């Protein structure tokens, strides 16, 4: 551990480290620009990670969403251990899998890993994960009953062997997914992004006379680890509990979360014992994914400035009983596991508020709502994803922002783009006054978004909403945010999660929850209240 300080001085390390990050960022930009998947390109739902030959991450693309934190290294370590031992890799090999338990928790997320050879020696790996347009099975959403309904699963398989494509695998893919050109196009884009990263890395090695990656890997990993450990050391030791309820199906079968966070010295353990069992809807999370969304708020609270790599996560342990909602086992359905992942920050910050109240934010109006529309428009089949966010939670020193994505980071689809792609007309998009939790600092407002089917055919809707029965919980005496709702006109029952149809002329009215407040509302600045009134944030 100590050799790093002597191998790279603080100047050389600073320079090489930013080069490593710029390599993965560059590859990420290419991937985003060339991908078809809305989720990848508009919502940064991808990651590029550079790893050493042990599969430890050295650098991760900086705009990636949290769901992929730590996932590629876990996958690569598993590939090395159980599928393709180190000595079997050849230059030009590329391995693909979308196994949710090895990868990112549901089948649309495809992991692609390539080895990096320098002067005929394997020096590391580069991997990308991206959300593919489709993997077959039922339309993506919360409505599947088991993992088999969620489409094709490719166990770790060589997509390319020494540069030669695995035609059988490509053929199977082409015949099993919707919009096959786009899905396969995106897989190729991932391979190309890996190649670009490899090229840039080799250039860096040459320019700096490095013949191996190991020392540099040790140096950056140790530095990130040290930063995280020091921040944890500064926090008070203790065990902090928090419990939290979410919608589940939104019809009465909810989910319950229990967390115990234990900080001891420079280590932190998050345990989910007491959390409800696997849900019948496809909102179950595998442990990889739970780890990512638990480690993310911990990193935000303790070490937000230090670039992340394996070292950032060594001091973090996440445990959950096998088979529960956050450690789901086969054949639990997983499709919309993001709903569950998106709630973990609430639980983690809720517990951490008792230890480091100035390093956390109040609960957000999450999870991000995901709506998939499928049907026919202008003679063509469309599958359109779009996203809506609720209010952001208040901070210890400022209000929450209105309508802002957290913990995922997903942009909305412009109204005019949606109307181009699908036979709908949007009838309202506005901030929702009075929806934020009160507090010394208030939460951010939620929003209302309504749209109408103006076509002649019904549109299939896969709906993932959250907090239509529960709320964003205020912390340290802060108030709760307002809950959301899903309504349809003319009025009838419409499921908050799962599949239904929007018939011609029907209008769907979605009200997204507000963010929660922080601190006692009695302590709120009078001027801030007056401003909120003038602007109509409160009435």
């Amino acid at each position, binding site marked *: 551990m100590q050799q790093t300080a002597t191998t790279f001085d*603080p100047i050389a390390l600073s320079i090489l480290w930013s080069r490593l990050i710029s390599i993965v960022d560059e590859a990420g930009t290419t991937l985003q620009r060339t991908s078809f998947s809305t989720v990848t390109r508009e919502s940064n739902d991808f990651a590029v990670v550079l790893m050493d030959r042990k599969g430890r991450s050295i650098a991760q693309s900086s705009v990636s969403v*949290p769901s992929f934190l730590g996932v590629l290294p876990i996958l690569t370590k598993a590939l090395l251990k159980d599928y393709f031992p180190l000595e079997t890799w050849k230059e030009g090999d590329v391995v693909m899998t979308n196994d949710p338990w090895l990868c990112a928790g549901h089948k649309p997320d495809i992991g692609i890993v390539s080895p990096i050879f320098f002067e005929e020696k394997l020096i590391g790996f580069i991997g990308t994960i991206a959300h593919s347009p489709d993997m077959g099975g039922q339309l993506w959403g919360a409505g599947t009953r088991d993992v088999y309904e969620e489409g094709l699963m490719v166990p770790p398989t060589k997509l390319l062997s020494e540069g030669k494509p695995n035609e059988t695998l490509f053929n199977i893919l082409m015949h099993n997914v919707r919009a096959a050109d786009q899905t396969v*196009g995106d897989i190729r884009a991932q391979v190309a992004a890996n190649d670009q990263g490899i090229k840039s890395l080799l250039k860096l090695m040459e320019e700096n006379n490095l013949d191996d990656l190991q020392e540099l890997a040790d140096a950056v990993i140790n530095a990130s680890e040290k930063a995280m450990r020091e921040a944890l050391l500064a926090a008070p030791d203790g065990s902090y509990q928090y419990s939290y309820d979410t919608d589940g199906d939104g019809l009465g079968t909810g989910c319950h979360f229990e967390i115990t966070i234990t900080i001891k010295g420079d280590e932190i353990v998050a345990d989910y014992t007491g959390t409800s069992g696997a849900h019948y809807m496809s909102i179950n999370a595998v442990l990889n994914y739970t780890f990512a969304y638990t480690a993310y708020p911990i990193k935000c609270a303790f070490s937000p400035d230090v670039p992340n790599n394996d070292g950032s996560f060594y001091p973090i342990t996440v445990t959950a009983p096998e088979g529960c909602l956050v450690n789901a086992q086969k054949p639990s359905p997983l499709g919309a596991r993001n709903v569950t992942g998106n709630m973990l920050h609430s639980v983690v910050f809720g517990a951490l508020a008792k230890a480091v109240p100035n390093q956390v934010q109040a609960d957000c109006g999450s999870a991000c709502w995901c709506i998939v529309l499928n049907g026919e428009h202008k003679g063509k089949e469309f599958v359109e994803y779009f996203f809506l966010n609720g209010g952001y939670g208040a901070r210890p020193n400022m209000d929450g922002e209105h309508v802002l994505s957290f913990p995922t980071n997903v942009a909305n689809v412009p109204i005019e783009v949606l109307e181009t792609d699908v036979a709908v007309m949007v009838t309202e998009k506005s901030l929702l006054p009075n929806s934020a939790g009160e507090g010394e600092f208030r939460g951010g407002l939620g929003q209302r978004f309504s749209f109408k089917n103006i076509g002649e055919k019904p549109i299939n809707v896969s709906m993932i909403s959250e907090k239509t029965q529960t709320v964003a919980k205020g912390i340290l005496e802060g108030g709760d945010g307002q809950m959301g709702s899903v309504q349809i006109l003319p009025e009838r029952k419409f499921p908050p999660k799962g599949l239904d149809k929007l018939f011609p002329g029907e209008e769907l009215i979605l009200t997204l929850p507000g963010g929660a407040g922080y601190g006692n509302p009695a302590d709120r600045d009078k001027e801030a209240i007056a401003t909120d009134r003038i602007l109509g944030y409160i009435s």
Partner: protein
Amino acid sequence: MKLGIDIGGTFTDFVLFDDRSNQLYFAKTLTTYPDPTVGIFNGVKELEEKFGFPVKEMSGIVHGTTLVTNAVIERKGAKTAFITTKGFEDVLEIGREMRYDIYDIFLTMPKPLVPRNLRMGVSERVDIQGNVVTPLDESALQSLTTTLQENGIEAVGICLLNSFANTAHEKTVGEYLSAHAPNMYYSLSSEIMPEIREYERSSATAMNAYVQPITDKYLKDFETQLRVAGFEGNINIMISSGKLTTIDGARKSPIHLLESGPAGGAMAGVFYGKHLQEENLLCFDMGGTTAKACVIYEGEPEITNHFEAGRVKRFKKGSGLPVRIPVIDLIEIGAGGGSIARVNTIGLLTVGPDSASSTPGPACYNLGGEDPTVTDADLVLGYLNADYFLGGEMKLNVAAARTAIETKLAKPLGISIEDAAMGIHKIVNENMANAARVHVLEKGMDPRHFNMIGFGGAGPVHAFGVAKLLNTKRLIIPVGAGVTSALGFLVSPVASEKIHSHISELRALNWEETNAFLRDMENDGYQFLAQSGIQKKDATVQRVVEMRYYGQGHEITIELPEGPLDAETIPEIEKRFIKEYEFRYNRAIEGMQMEMVTWRVVVQGPVPEMEVKQFSTTGSDAQAYKGTRKVFFEETGYLDCPVYDRYALKPDERFDGPAIIEETESTTVIGINSTVQVDKDKNILIDLQY
């Protein structure tokens, strides 16, 4: 005689081209606040007194200013209201719902330029094809106008949903306002940015309205004062795309002035490139707080339509207000002379992006700054001359620079002051080279294939280091490196750019309709040029379309074939798209349909010829060689380095690096393993050996 005037934050720069003698003249005055025209006329007076050129003899003036940018950054625009389709008043505030920093839970998003209580909805709706679904409720316009007047509104942005497909409702609202509230400025989104994506269009429209009253007043004053002074020539204004517009054009769409200064710099790069017969150049411009890099490829800078103004975090993508106007594609990074160096939480040396600015400034300025900066490092290393900063106008304090570096960096890191200073110099160079490399790579090009041109106050100090990191073969430090933007103004063409959103698969295009709108856009352009006295026969037309594979979300720009388009031109368009796509992303996708999104027609006047015979400088017959001083280079440590006076350099003079060349606005630092050659115009050409 033509005059370029560039108002920057600190200085107002002047470049005068005398077309009788083919000579260039430079001047610099302090920018004056609150009325920058005072500074302009100080400079005009100086030009007359020093060189004998009165303003009334000039045939043309080209102007650029930071006024618009500063109004947005400092939120000093007009009291502005915003009118949109009822039910969508909050689109301007909601934005894209995305964070610009993943790990910072304490981030703040940019506040909209128009607050919620001044955003008003009108009942109307047009569908995506442009069909009216709900007619505009004209009866509501009267009370709306009264509300605006009661609130003391000076300017109004009007952006209705799908107005790029049907402009009628926006026009009606605008016409009503101009008839009933004639003193109120208004901006229509269908004129400012007729493109799909309501938030981005709203943002540009609101911003245009927000800056319009101050820009309008300023430009009117500017013009009036010039006319009073007897100036009778044409006045043109530099815009962000490296083109010129008229005063009227600028008053109507002031947001196009946002990047006029940097665009001028890039156009100067184009000019120098042509002059030095370098078709492909990387322009590197480094000042007090930022550095910029811009690619000139085959003699042209690339234009992008992605731009943000007024960022909450200056160098963080996504933290500003989007403005989709054509802008010369350059990257800006937080690396300048004032950038502060620190030891970060994990014990590594980092530089920037925050800057000590001019107050308190670097420690060596002696103005109370205690943080070590890039300038402090450059001074400690001997690159800067403590007695000849800004030509000796400002004395630098070496001891203060050393103390700042020692206490804040060298001691905590356990290294020498020189090593810490070299660390700062190297890291800032590395940051700039990294950013430049990514910028070039994103265009699918190889940075090693570009020679570099360096300017700006700190540019010549760092250009050599950056060039080395990029494996650049030749580095050029041009004459006039301190006033490049103003020079660029004089070599930019007058042009009109028209935009039209029309989304359709290539193979499904209605050719008659397509040719008709392209023709209309072209004719509008000719009319615009006529206002600057440019005839149709002298104009060039560029028609481009932004297209993508059907289903993608990012477009690339393709030049359309000349003449009317029809089914026969499809293969040619496809070929061009595939070529560009392969160039950028290495490989095309077989069998995918292509889709056209936004169409642009640029009608451009001739690029002003400027056959410069001589760059006038305050010449000197003295020896250029001033002696040696101790300068620290990474490879050698301190050595006795020759120092030259830029003004006394003779054409064709040659020497080897290392060397320091001093001039008033900057210092050129030349490392070892290089040869220096002065060309006939006194540009410095540096060849690097590897």
